[in-house]
């Protein structure tokens, strides 16, 4: 493989890819709510000013406008911060995008605690739960820049509403440029035994590093990336449950309603097995650097390794 590492934030990968897709996909229209410099839709806006609309700080208007454009046949990418896209505008997303099944891609950035210093008001910890519960809404959480772009290739071909959860912070590559995304499929990144860690988004990298730390103690966990949270890879979950004696989920999201819950739903129905959900434990975040917060909430490699060690 000859590819250069990207090691960029998923929001940056999103902005660049979107500007690229604009060239071959004249049906793409992009909307933002006064955060285009942060969500990186400004890259598309500069290239295709006629297919970009900034609605100002009005997230409900953002989703309503997206619905109208989609009703007329456009593929709409709507971006803002995740807390506002999935929180403030939730009911509009449900009624006016998901219910009619419109082709709107809600690609929001600044998800989870890695938002950092802005603090709890801006750290979305509930979005996976909020989007997952809406009928017909697909929920995608990329682990790095490559997966982000792979998911976008899928999204422009797919019809219907999708939520993609993007991050603010730079993240080291998990994949390379050969990566292809398949809806509803997870990926075994590291095959181990006895313990299996399912991770999603920014903390996938940390889960891999945690496995490294645990290896020195003779623990060899399997690490699985779950980028497609809805639909979720039921077969893979069942397979992992049968091959391991203890399962963990890791996410920078509330453990209520997120990846851990989605896995638990599969386990209870198809393969009862013990699952320990690591993530935000029914609490709000706070100000601090991303690294400080990941450490504090035990979502960095050391914290994940410690949590796992403490359970085995």
């Amino acid at each position, binding site marked *: 493989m000859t590819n250069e590492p990207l090691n960029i934030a998923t929001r940056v990968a999103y902005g660049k890819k979107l500007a690229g897709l604009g060239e071959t996909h004249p049906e793409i229209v992009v909307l*933002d709510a*006064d*955060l*285009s*410099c*942060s969500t990186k839709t*400004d890259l598309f806006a500069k290239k295709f000013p006629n297919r970009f609309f*900034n*609605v*100002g*700080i*009005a*997230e*409900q*208007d953002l989703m309503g406008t997206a619905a109208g454009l989609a009703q007329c046949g456009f593929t709409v990418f709507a971006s803002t911060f995740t*807390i*506002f896209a999935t*929180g*403030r505008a939730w009911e509009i997303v449900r009624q006016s995008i998901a219910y009619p099944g419109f082709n709107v891609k809600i690609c929001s950035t600044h998800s989870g605690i890695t938002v950092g*210093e*802005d*603090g*709890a*008001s*801006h750290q979305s910890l509930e979005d996976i739960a909020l989007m997952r519960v809406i009928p017909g809404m697909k929920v995608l959480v990329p682990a790095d820049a490559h997966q982000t772009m792979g998911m976008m290739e899928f999204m422009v071909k797919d019809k219907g509403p999708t939520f993609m959860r993007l991050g603010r912070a730079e993240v080291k590559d998990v994949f390379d440029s050969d990566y292809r995304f398949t809806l509803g499929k997870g990926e075994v990144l590291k095959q181990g035994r006895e313990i299996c860690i399912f991770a999603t988004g920014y903390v996938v990298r940390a889960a891999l590093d945690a496995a490294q730390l645990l290896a020195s103690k003779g623990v060899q966990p399997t690490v699985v990336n779950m980028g497609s949270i809805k639909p979720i890879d039921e077969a893979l979950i069942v397979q992992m449950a049968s091959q391991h004696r203890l399962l963990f989920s890791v996410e920078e999201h509330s453990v209520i309603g997120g990846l851990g819950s989605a896995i638990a739903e599969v386990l209870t129905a198809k393969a009862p097995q013990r699952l320990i959900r690591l993530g935000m434990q029914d609490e709000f975040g*706070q*100000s*601090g*650097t991303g690294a*400080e*917060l990941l450490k*504090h909430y035990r979502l960095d490699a050391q914290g994940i390794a410690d949590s796992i060690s403490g359970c085995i």
Partner: protein
Amino acid sequence: MQTQSIQELTNIARHLRINIIKMVHNAGCGHFGGAFSSADMLTGLFFYKLNYRPDDPFWEDRDRFVLSSGHMSAGLYAALAKLGVFNEKELMGFRKFGTPLQGHPKFNLKYGIEMSTGSLGQGLSIGNGMALAARLKNKNYRVYSLETDGGSESGMVWEGIMTAAHYKLDNRCVLFDLNNVQIDGYMSDVMNIHPVADKFRAFNWHAIEIDGNDMQQICAALDEAAATKGRPTAIIGKTIMGKGVSIFENKPKYHGVAPTDEEFKTAMQELGVQS
């Protein structure tokens, strides 16, 4: 507190700006552009008008203030520290891990922070609730909030404006920072909300248009608002983003970045801090 002269108040506003820029510089991130544009109105409110006891932030009869534009937290914290609600030294903890001075305000009455804000557009309604509570409890306190031009693009703001007028909340006053800037640029390029005063009037508010960086006009408007009966008042202050430091003025870029060391030095000089 009503004895402060215009000169004294102007000096306090300058002091707030010094602390605001120190805080954002020290944190390495944060928002000072809007905190600068609104610093004069905040000073007029806190140091001329607000009925408040810095040594008893739980006092039931205190006037309430909601910072609807939570990203301007540095301005609020600087004002509360200057009032003496907490020690000015704590300002340097701004945005750091473990601080009560979160990036966006977190409800904490001990620190004088009346409400958690940061998600734009919600404060106006919250202020209305506090004003209705005063009516229910037969209290004379007044409720103020700082609204902003960008923040008022949120539909919820106009829902609250409707409610305040419907219930004739004359104990409710909005300070409106019209600096014509939001994150993605000038209001005229992103989303035009003019004419603001006419909109308030159409919603049955008393609207006063002033230069929001002129202390004399600010104090007079606050008095006029308090004397206005039967309807809420909006004080619409035309301001300059980054006001007080020439290199920052009217530049959208300074909405939410820390100043470089060089810019910080210039700012301190222009704000009259001897190095």
